[in-house]
């Protein structure tokens, strides 16, 4: 439905509406993988690559740990927001703590080809679909 448009995210509103629609997607169903729900993530598909985008503002790259085993991904780390003992607090909204999330993808991925990028507080994981998971064309004799 969206592929019909030349650029589905021509406006910000279109992107926001598309994301709203997929808030009820069952693509990533509850799986036996253990872990918390932080960080929240969005999953996109681009060609044969799946892209997971998560917002992790204020997390130091060194405090971030990403593990992949088969088609299970685990993102864990620590988010800190501390300002020293002497500081007088006026407003405290940022959350800090430990996070550990594991998710099992409904597709097979190629673990050796996975790339991760952390920029401006956003972690992006590029997960290429495994060759064994690709659909095969069958010739009709």
């Amino acid at each position: 439905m969206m592929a019909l448009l030349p650029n589905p995210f021509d406006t910000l509103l279109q992107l926001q509406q598309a994301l709203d629609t997929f808030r009820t997607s069952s693509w990533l169903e509850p799986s036996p993988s253990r872990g918390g729900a932080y960080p929240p993530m969005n999953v996109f598909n681009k060609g044969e690559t799946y892209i997971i985008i998560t917002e992790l503002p204020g997390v130091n790259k060194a405090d971030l740990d990403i593990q992949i085993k088969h088609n299970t991904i685990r993102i864990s780390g620590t988010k800190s927001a501390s300002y020293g003992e002497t500081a007088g607090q006026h407003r405290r909204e940022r959350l800090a703590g430990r996070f550990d999330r594991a998710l099992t993808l409904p597709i097979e991925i190629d673990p050796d080809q996975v790339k991760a990028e952390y920029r401006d507080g956003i972690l992006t994981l590029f997960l290429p679909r495994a060759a064994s998971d690709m659909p095969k064309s069958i010739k009709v004799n």
Partner: protein
Amino acid sequence: MSTAQELPVPEKKELVSKEEKTVPGRYYVPYTDIYETESALIMVMEMPGVEQNDLSILLENDVLRVEGRIDFSKYDGMEPVYAEYNVGPYARSFTLAGKFDQESISAQLADGVLTLTLPKLKEVQPRRIPIN
């Protein structure tokens, strides 16, 4: 102690603004910590995805307005399959109470977190009086 606890998932708060926007789309309120030291007021705002060039910080009549746009062109050609959060620009304003040296406010952006340092004017800084 607090670092040992599991992080909850915060739902992004949509900005309810007095003025209406001419461009359709939702704005979000950045989570902000504000603290004070002897010499400055420091504001720490979470704005993931905002690059330095897409940030505007305006100070007018004691109102500090911070706005961060996001580059959503990187979503070109991507089809969502699953979503847990929405994306959008960030905006928030604060009315400053107190006297600050408005000329020397400094801003620093790192890992999607903006830190604003508002130095207090010399006259309002506490002075230690030596006893002879």
